[in-house]
């Protein structure tokens, strides 16, 4: 009990001394803290950027859906031996119908539904307004079972419109915004590369995919209508939803078997299609992410090390200057721990001050960046503040330890003699 109380009093005394010491040497303390400030700004900003980028990756990947397979002629990545793929027969709209029939006939199938998807770039016009670089794609009414994107207004086309290949479409958020500022586009007729099409819905804002492609610049119509306008000779992609996310492996095996039947492939023949999945993107992204993380870690630790050296130096100076004081304190009963704590806390206090200022500066920079570049995926969070403060306290402890340890081991007689 008394030991605990004593530790507490020693700690408060140490903070008091540290504060007095910092105030008495304002310039010196601020210059030292500057090193820590720079380090903490680097750490927090880097972490904000990295977590923002990571979040961007995650968001983009989840747009692909973690329970959806993509059946294509080509693999998304790593198709070096292209001659193996070039002669594959295109994937057709009716492959989706056949696949769905097989799935329905399979008891306890792991697959839910397959929809075809054909797409191309186009420009969309309404009145005098025109937007280019829009991605138009055609699919079936069953797309509603795969996509969980919200609507600002309206709806997806239904089965009747789908079967009738009616020229109706759903606009991405940005398309609607550009062509119909401050009004509803529902019921209006836009022209898609010259083909008239009635707007029946508008998607909610979704964002970009890895900054490459915006889901808000798209337009969705029945695959029949798409086929009439643009044709589907180049083939389609099948999106296949899985019932249970935890059985992706088994579901993939089932899908490959079913597709082989759809395509009438013989045993022993190589698949003439590829099942792609979100995982492939992740495998591509992870090394990129890792390099960004590693580079960030190296840069930030360098700047923190420079700050730490400054702290260590100032603590050595402080110990030297106050050698006689250390002697006096030991003479009246300060133990090794007391002296060690005193100088450690002094180092840590400067670091905490540097950390608080550094986090403030980083937050200001962050606000500035977000104001200038709203799409930059940086994030500032409580976790970040905690990381910043932990980093500064650790810097203080690690850099203050050697000088503080030296101070605590001083022989009181030698310290008292020191002039």
């Amino acid at each position: 009990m008394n030991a605990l109380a004593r530790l507490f009093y020693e700690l408060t005394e140490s903070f008091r001394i540290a504060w007095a010491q910092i105030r008495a040497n304002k310039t010196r303390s601020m210059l030292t803290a500057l090193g820590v400030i720079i380090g903490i700004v680097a750490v927090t900003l880097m972490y904000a950027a990295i977590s923002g980028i990571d979040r961007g990756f995650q968001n983009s990947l989840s747009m692909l859906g973690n329970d959806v397979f993509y059946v294509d002629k080509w693999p998304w990545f790593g198709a070096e031996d292209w001659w193996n793929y070039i002669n594959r027969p295109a994937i057709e709209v009716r492959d989706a119908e056949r696949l769905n029939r097989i799935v329905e006939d399979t008891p306890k199938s792991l697959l839910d539904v397959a929809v075809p998807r054909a797409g191309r770039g186009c420009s969309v016009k309404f009145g005098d307004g025109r937007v280019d670089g829009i991605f138009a794609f055609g699919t079936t009414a069953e797309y509603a079972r795969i996509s969980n994107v919200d609507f600002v207004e309206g709806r997806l086309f239904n089965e009747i419109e789908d079967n009738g290949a009616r020229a109706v479409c759903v606009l991405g958020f940005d398309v609607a915004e550009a062509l119909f500022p401050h009004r509803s586009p529902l019921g209006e007729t836009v022209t898609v590369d010259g083909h008239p099409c009635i707007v029946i819905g508008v998607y909610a804002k979704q964002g970009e995919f890895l900054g490459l492609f915006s889901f808000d610049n798209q337009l969705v119509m029945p695959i029949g209508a798409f086929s009439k306008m643009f044709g589907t000779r180049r083939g389609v992609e099948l999106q296949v939803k899985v019932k249970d996310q935890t059985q992706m492996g088994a579901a993939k095996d089932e899908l490959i078997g079913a597709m082989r039947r759809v395509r009438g492939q013989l045993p022993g023949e190589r698949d003439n299609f590829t099942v792609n999945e979100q995982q492939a993107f992740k495998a591509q992204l992870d090394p990129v992410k890792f390099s960004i993380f590693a580079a960030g870690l190296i840069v930030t630790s360098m700047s923190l090390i420079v700050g730490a050296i400054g702290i260590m130096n100032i603590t050595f100076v402080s110990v030297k200057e106050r050698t006689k004081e250390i002697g006096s304190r030991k003479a009246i009963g300060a133990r090794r721990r007391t002296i060690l704590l005193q100088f450690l806390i002094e180092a840590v206090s400067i670091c905490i001050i540097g950390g608080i200022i550094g986090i403030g500066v980083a937050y200001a920079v962050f606000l500035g960046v977000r104001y200038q570049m709203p799409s930059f995926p940086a994030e500032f969070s409580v976790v970040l503040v905690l990381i910043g403060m932990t980093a500064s306290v650790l810097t203080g402890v690690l850099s203050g330890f050697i000088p503080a340890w030296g101070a605590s081991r001083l022989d009181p007689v030698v310290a008292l003699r020191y002039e």
Partner: protein
Amino acid sequence: MIPPPPPDPATPRTLRPHGPLVIDIRNVTKLYHMGDETVHALRGVTLQVHRNEYLAIMGPSGSGKSTLMNMLGCLDTPTSGHYEFNGKDVSSMEDDELAAIRNREIGFVFQTFNLLPRSTSLHNVELPLIYAGVPPNERRERARQALDHVGLGDRMLHKPNELSGGQRQRVAVARALVNHPSIILADEPTGNLDSKTGEEIMYLFDTLYEQGNTIIVVTHEEDIARHARRAVRLRDGLIESDRVTVEPAAV
């Protein structure tokens, strides 16, 4: 057990009986190594001090007074010999155990005051109590009392650089007193003061002695030593003489 002290003609047993033994050192030596040279700061000192003695340690410069004082104050450990403080063997104690003894049993007064420059008198006097784990309110109260005791009740919130030399030394005495130590050790407490202020500090020690404290003062001034009741003279690291001085006139 400790062997009986060797018969020493220079140390006549003419002292009047005192309270219990506080300091008991026997055959203590202290060597310093300076490169190839060895300095014998103490060559075998035997000394007993009882409760409520008032002792002056005298001797020429370099005779080992400060070395002996540091040893008595548990700041330093002997190269050889025995030291029992209040019946406890301190010659083999660890650093932190010694720190605890210094904190509770010993009050130091230095020639150069050794106060914390940026702290008030009150906080300087509180410091030993902080290290002793005394709660803040009690700490402040006791520090106030100690400062009142040395006549500085009106200077509690002054920092050392706002005080005269004599006042600083009074703060140091209050700091030495505040934890009710078994013994007060003062190494040339008047060395940095003019003779009048020095006398005042010595009167303060006289009062503390009258109140029952045990005091050892190192000095090389006969005037200062005359305040004490017993004088120990060192020469070349050995006790040259140890005798009761003439009782001063009652105050």
